[in-house]
């Protein structure tokens, strides 16, 4: 099983003729993705690795039927319009790769998505992968690299960092722990889908036995997850890696993602670690500690992986 996407999921790439989009189109196709069309206004009639290019999403729907998902890889200035276009054309799962979008615009995208029953992953993310099933986004890179880092198995991964999604998966894979679905949720202050919002999907997925997350300073997302875990009596043990501990001493400075800036006491790593540990989430200081922590959490529940 997987969450959010399956091997049958059809999707499109908006901004498909751009440098990054060309790359990720090839990478996704090589991993088996069903990309039915791409959009770059004014470039209708071209193709990118065999994927036909259209001026707008509507034309893809007309020619090929309703796609389920969209990867949005257009410059920040055009992202809101592209996302609105995807939503208004019936697309339900939207991965926004673009970064540096002001949060007011992200909030608008999320609000419209909520109105229309669509889900946004990102922005500033690398997308979703269910190993050996499908991927949607740049996560893992070229198909060969992706297969090397990601293997099928019982661990769900969520990460505010796209790169660290693969680092964690690769570490799990090396330790013999495969992954059910890994979601790069994005590093901005406002994102489409948070850890806590993904938890019900993992909770409902029989294949998933435990969760690993990458967390960092800034925002209340870890606190929200800790609350969710407590309130819902989750069956899934969670191990969190906490990066950016040095930032606690450097309030108001910006390191890492846009979402990391420490504005108040609740944003610090110390505070987050305390909240997560209080909710029973184990916190790792090094990535390589994650597999061991997961195994011991599972074996205390009588589950061996």
């Amino acid at each position, binding site marked *: 099983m997987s969450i959010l996407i399956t091997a049958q999921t059809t999707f499109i790439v908006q901004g498909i003729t751009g440098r990054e989009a060309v790359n990720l189109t090839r990478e996704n196709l090589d991993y088996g993705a069903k990309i039915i069309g791409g959009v770059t206004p004014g470039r209708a009639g071209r193709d990118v690795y065999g994927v036909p290019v259209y001026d707008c999403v509507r034309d893809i729907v007309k020619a090929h039927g309703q796609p389920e998902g969209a990867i949005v890889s257009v410059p920040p200035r055009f992202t809101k319009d592209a996302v609105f276009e995807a939503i208004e054309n019936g697309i339900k799962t939207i991965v926004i790769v673009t970064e540096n979008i002001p*949060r*007011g615009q992200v909030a608008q995208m999320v609000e419209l998505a909520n109105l229309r029953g669509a889900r946004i992953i990102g922005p500033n993310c*690398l997308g979703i992968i269910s190993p050996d099933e499908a991927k949607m986004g740049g996560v893992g890179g070229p198909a060969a690299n992706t297969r090397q*880092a990601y293997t099928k198995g019982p661990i769900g991964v969520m990460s505010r960092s796209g790169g660290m999604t693969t680092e964690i998966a690769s570490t799990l894979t090396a330790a013999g722990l495969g992954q059910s679905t890994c979601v790069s949720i994005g590093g901005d*202050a406002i994102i489409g889908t948070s850890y806590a919002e993904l938890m019900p999907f993992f909770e409902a997925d029989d294949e998933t036995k435990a969760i690993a997350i990458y967390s960092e300073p800034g925002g209340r997302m870890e606190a929200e997850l800790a609350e969710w875990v407590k309130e819902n009596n989750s069956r899934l043990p969670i191990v969190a890696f906490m990066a*950016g501990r040095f930032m606690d001493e450097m309030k108001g*400075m*910006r390191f*890492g993602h846009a979402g990391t800036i420490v504005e108040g006491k609740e944003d610090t790593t110390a505070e987050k670690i305390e909240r997560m540990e209080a909710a029973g989430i184990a916190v790792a200081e090094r990535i390589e500690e994650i597999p061991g922590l997961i195994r011991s959490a599972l074996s205390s529940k009588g589950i061996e992986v």
Partner: protein
Amino acid sequence: MRFYEYESKALFAKHGLPLGTRQVVNSAAEARAAAEAIGGPTVIKGQVLSGGRMKAGAVKFADTPDEAAAEFEAVLPVIVNGESARSILIEEKSPIAHEYFVSVTWDGRRKLPVVLFSDMGGIDIEEVAETHPEHLSRTHFSTILPLSERVAKEAIGAVGVTGSDLNKLVPIVYKLIQLFLEYDLTLAEINPLAKLDDGRFIVLDGHLDMEAEARGDHKALLAELGIGDDETRQARPPTEFEIAGARVNAVDHRGVAGNVVEFDGNLGLIIGAGGGSLTLFDAVRKQGGKPANYCEIGGNPSMSKVKNLTKLILSKPGVDKIAVMMNVVSNTRVDIVARGVIKGCIEAGKDPAEVIAIFRIPGAWEDEGFKILAKHGVEYCDRSVSMYEAAGRACAKMGSN
């Protein structure tokens, strides 16, 4: 990106929010003249970006122009959280009947903007939230449905304000909401918002923060306020080195090789990406390394961008070696980064094999990348060496372990 009080007030004035008579002054003589023109008691405030200036002694009161001149001299040298005043704002001091608090910000959990309103202004709002939660309202509003004054009315009414005070407050709060949206602010706060003895409302102090990502959309406003492109408006002003790093990133839109922050160590860091940099910086510090800088590469930067960043870091006095490290990469390419750092070393007149302490970037196109590194004799490692261990190897080479 934070605005100084005088800049915030200039923006408030531009949009018709009620303010006291005020003037930015840069000498005691100017302060005296300004106080004379105001013609009554004044308040003298040091212009700093960090909070806590009242406690630090950067806010003083004066009854006469002579006192205003004296207090100017007293306030000017005050350092607030390591920050000296950019200038001094002198403002009329009016008799206050009551103080309110209003703030518009983003709620990352609800993913909506929220108006915080309190009839207990002037004090720490987190304290109000804790001790008098019924005096602090939180009113979320839509960013896509039509906006109207009712949001302001509900925010104010929720703490029990009614009568003519409610009707006078609504347009002020509504304007603040509009400012917040129009200028892509992450925070628009008025505290205190004062009701004077004569029944008028005025903004006593304000605090605006603009989202860094939106600066390009508001060039006209920033120019009008005199805020230069190089002013990062973080907790401290940027160094020359950091400004040069920002330029490396800005001249080429392909990927990121920036967010350079200067430290005083001997190990130059070319690290990435967003999360990986935080992880690696922690790992270097934990193992006794002395970073010369923080930075982030990612999003598949061009070869030349990596090259220029490498040259910049190698040009920093005191940098002995560089460590090139990232998490397993997906869209950034190992071979492109390898080309960039090697070319950067060579153009800086250094031997890559000597000056690169460790290259640990596994992932996309690593086979090509490792061939390039091997050819130039650079020590590299794959994913079987953890980020922590790779950072440890670099630290060991610096003799600081």
